[in-house]
């Protein structure tokens, strides 16, 4: 790669090049699902349950069909689609399989559950139609809280699970752990709850489905992070062959996990193709806030044993996750408890560990994995345990962390995970130093507000290969990725990836990765994503897997293509392959000749008679990538400075520092963007956002008036420092960077608030942090 590229060393990787996505998005020429209009298109709206828990007595759509503009209306029995079922290969004591009907027919399990689909010539008429539906529901006592679910006093959410527990696993129990707790110098405990949140992509979910008579295919344009999985479920529900469904993903306005599971409305809208007219459904914000996939509501009871000098000896945790009414496909209701159970020890050397993880079902909207998945929560609990131990032992909280951080790699944890090298200690040291250099410690405010500084240390497993998902016993095992690269006649290339950008800039970063392998400018590399006809199979984008796994697959495909080009050049030059080299500027040197890619492509396509006998025409290579071991681990330390206002209980974040290490950053500016955006979502969870239900299971935050999404006034500027511990087995040493910000922020904010409260004796362990509790804590001496 000697030819000057964007960076001094000539590589595209590592350079914050202009994003190829930007020109269209900046000019309003991006194409999102709702921007797609097809001739004779119908608009769908859903008749939804007004009860949290009820038997369906009747869904009468006769009046609906009389509404002007309404063309058709279907209830569950009319569409007759198979249920969506996500399974774990676990014994029945650990996992109770349940299903999610596309439209509810017999029973409704949350307010907002779809009962019928109305199709009209415009969306206004479709909504008029919905209002004309007559739905008879026979209410049952709703199961609204996790405690009520576990008490199992009333009718269960699913008859198959009379105790309302869908998943109950005890993955680890170190022998003798009870003795460790009994003999320890100090045992501290934390009980923590985290609020139910909405991942809240700014673009709501949506779909445009059309039947193509030429290809005999249902063409489904939808904003999903997992196009192939949507295809698979849709084909199964509707009884179609896989190839009779083509899923295309246009530009996507965020996903954050809410769009990495298969939604029922998309399937219903697509199935409405029986009218032989295109169907569009765009979720409105009210639906998105009340009836879409939610996340995060967990309850931890945890304790940890320490020596007198702050060394952790044992950790025990019981986590209950409120998964709402249904198990999501493909991850199942196990996603949160399994993640929490497997990874809770995090960045600390924990010698003994016992954990129980449960998923309970309640009459609330179902959950999906949301950016970070359980890690924001267990990191918060671990960091609270560290702080509490420090307080009890009279030690410095950072010192306690330093005594326990993993510093030797690869490290095999008590959780049977091998951590690849990271900078756990270094990131903490640097984060502390940055805040010290800025003069925060010891500072006080002249306006009567109280200052607090908080930290959080964590790692995030990013490249989950199929081994990691298989270990969870998912029956559908994500993990690998497949990439195909094709060189055209002019020497430019097109690369497919099974991953899918919803804001993370794949068109740019994947092009950088491939450009380096082939010595091409990155704008000569086109990335194809989100088309199930052009991509054999893919696992989409979630769990920060895009660059680590998808990027590595693309890199491997590019290397294979490079090998083909070298072989071809050697043949034409009459030399041996080993001496042929890519010259780093779009050509191959073989013997004393140099062939441009265009010359080689010319032979491959237009003068195939010159090819060696055993080589066919064309220039295409395919490669896959899977993480063999336990994945890659990005890490970071977050530091947060808050000011608490005793007059209002309000929290203002004055400073936020993030020292992150995601290995080699393909595009540092994109990495920073991911960190900042993630931190904003983490702060949102710590201070603002919560989906609240009343005792009947009615959602109390159906609009942005009630569901408080932080704005630029609440989210501070974030200083980001990069450390770089390259990963040994991914393309370019990258580790993945999508979720870290969200994982670290709640703990850092909560610790900062507690630091500010230290003279009050009050400690808070749950989020969102209630302002009233802060107010009370800050004013207790006065009263």
């Amino acid at each position, binding site marked *: 790669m000697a030819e000057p590229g964007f960076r001094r060393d000539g590589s595209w990787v590592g350079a*914050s090049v*202009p*994003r190829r*996505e*930007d*020109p269209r*998005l*900046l*000019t*309003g*020429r*991006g*194409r*999102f699902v*709702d*921007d797609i*209009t097809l001739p004779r298109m119908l608009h769908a709206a859903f008749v939804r349950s007004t009860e949290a828990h009820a038997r369906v007595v009747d869904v009468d759509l006769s009046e609906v069909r009389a509404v*002007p*503009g309404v063309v058709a209306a279907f209830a569950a029995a009319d569409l007759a689609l198979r249920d969506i079922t996500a399974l774990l290969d676990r014994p029945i004591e650990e996992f109770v399989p349940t299903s999610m009907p596309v439209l509810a027919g017999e029973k409704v399990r949350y307010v907002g559950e779809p009962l019928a689909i109305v199709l009209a010539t415009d969306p*206004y*008429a479709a909504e*008029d139609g919905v209002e004309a539906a007559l739905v008879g529901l026979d209410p049952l006592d709703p199961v609204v809280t996790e405690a009520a679910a576990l008490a199992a006093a009333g009718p269960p959410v699913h008859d198959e699970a009379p105790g309302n527990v869908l998943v109950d696993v005890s993955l680890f129990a170190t022998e003798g752990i009870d003795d460790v707790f009994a003999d320890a110098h100090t045992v501290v405990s934390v009980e923590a709850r985290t609020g139910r949140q909405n991942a*809240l*992509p*700014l*673009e*709501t979910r949506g779909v445009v489905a059309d039947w193509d008579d030429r290809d005999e295919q249902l063409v489904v344009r939808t904003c999903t992070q997992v196009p192939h999985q949507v295809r698979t479920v849709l084909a199964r529900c509707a009884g179609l062959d896989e190839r009779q469904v083509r899923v295309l993903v246009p*530009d*996507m*306005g*965020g996903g*954050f996990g809410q769009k990495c599971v298969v939604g029922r409305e998309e399937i219903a809208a697509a199935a409405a193709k029986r009218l032989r007219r295109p169907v569009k459904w765009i979720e*409105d*914000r009210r639906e998105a806030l009340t009836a879409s996939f939610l996340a995060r509501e967990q309850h931890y009871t945890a304790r940890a044993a320490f020596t007198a000098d702050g060394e952790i000896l044992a950790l025990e945790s019981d986590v209950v996750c409120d998964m709402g009414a249904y198990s999501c496909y493909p991850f199942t209701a196990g996603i949160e408890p399994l993640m929490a159970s497997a990874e809770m020890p995090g960045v600390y050397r924990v010698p003994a560990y016992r954990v129980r993880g449960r998923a309970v079902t309640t009459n609330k909207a179902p959950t999906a994995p949301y950016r970070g998945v359980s890690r924001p929560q267990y990191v918060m609990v671990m960091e609270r345990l560290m702080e509490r131990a420090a307080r009890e032992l009279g030690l410095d909280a950072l010192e306690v962390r330093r005594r326990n951080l993993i510093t030797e790699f690869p490290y095999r944890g008590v959780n049977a995970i091998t951590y690849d090298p990271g900078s756990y200690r270094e990131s903490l040291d640097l984060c502390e130093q940055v805040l010290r250099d800025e003069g925060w410690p010891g500072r006080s405010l002249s306006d009567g507000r109280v200052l607090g500084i908080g930290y959080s240390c964590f790692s995030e497993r990013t490249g989950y290969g199929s081994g990691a998902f298989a270990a969870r016993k998912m029956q559908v095992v994500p993990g690998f990725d497949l990439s195909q690269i094709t060189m055209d006649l002019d020497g430019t290339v097109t690369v497919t990836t099974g991953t899918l950008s*919803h*804001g*993370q*800039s794949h068109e740019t970063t994947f092009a950088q990765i491939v450009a380096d392998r082939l010595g091409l400018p990155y704008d000569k590399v086109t990335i194809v994503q989100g088309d199930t006809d052009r991509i054999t199979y893919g696992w989409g984008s979630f769990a920060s897997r895009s660059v680590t796994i998808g990027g590595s697959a693309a890199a491997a495909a590019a290397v294979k293509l490079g090998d083909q080009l070298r072989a071809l050049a050697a043949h034409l030059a009459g030399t041996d392959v080993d001496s042929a080299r890519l010259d780093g500027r779009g050509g191959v040197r073989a013997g004393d000749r140099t062939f441009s890619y265009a010359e080689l492509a010319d032979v491959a396509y237009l003068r195939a008679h010159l090819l060696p006998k055993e080589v066919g025409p064309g220039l295409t290579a395919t490669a896959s990538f899977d993480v063999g071991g336990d994945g890659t681990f990005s890490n970071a330390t977050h530091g947060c400075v808050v000011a608490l206002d005793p007059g209002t209980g309000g929290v203002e974040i004055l400073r936020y520092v993030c020292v992150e290490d995601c290995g080699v950053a393909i595009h540092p*500016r*994109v990495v*920073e*963007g991911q960190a*900042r*955006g*993630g*931190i*904003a*979502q983490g702060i949102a969870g710590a201070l603002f956002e919560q989906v609240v239900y009343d005792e009947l299971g009615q959602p109390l935050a159906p*609009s*942005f*008036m009630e569901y408080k*999404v932080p*704005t*630029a*006034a*609440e*989210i501070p*500027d*974030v200083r980001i420092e990069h450390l770089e511990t390259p990963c040994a087995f991914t393309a370019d040493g990258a580790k993945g960077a999508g979720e870290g*910000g969200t994982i670290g922020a709640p703990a850092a904010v909560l610790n900062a608030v507690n630091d500010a409260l230290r003279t009050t004796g009050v400690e808070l362990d749950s989020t969102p942090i209630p302002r009233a509790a802060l107010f009370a804590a800050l004013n207790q001496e006065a009263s």
Partner: protein
Amino acid sequence: MTDVQLVELTVNGERHELAIPPRRTLADVLRHDLGLTGTHVGCEHGICGACTVLVDDAPARACLLFAVQVENAAIRTVESLSGPDGGLSDLQRCFGEHHGLQCGFCTPGFLMLAEGYLAESPDADREEIREVVASNLCRCTGYQTIVDAVEDCAGRRRAALQSALDSAPRSAPQSAPQSAPQSALDGASA
């Protein structure tokens, strides 16, 4: 509610005659009747700002307006910002340079918000800009880079205006326009 009404709208300098029901929002008319899909809809209740357009130069939520309400106004959408050849405006370039967008869904709203605001308050400082940026929601960026982009654009426009004034002949009238002439801006920030 199916009555239609004849409405004349001026959008990006072009006049359109439409037969639409009175309950049709400006956002829907722009997006679906005129095909100007750059204006996005994120909430339809006036909070997210993704649908922000300029109505007589002032930022407004297109989801909260019925098209019939703005018959006599000049409406500008994100499509008006770039040149006919697709060349980006200084503001758009600043968003790109500062990574002020990720998924890009909120971007047209922020661009139009900033476009209207900077024309009105060319001297805005960072704190004021942050306050204005707080009118809209973005779920991807954490806002900082959006504030950076708008601040940078404001600074560049001021510098361009200053150099235009400096190079103007002394006898020229001293009444500086509220915002610099577009040509001067383009030249300075290209």
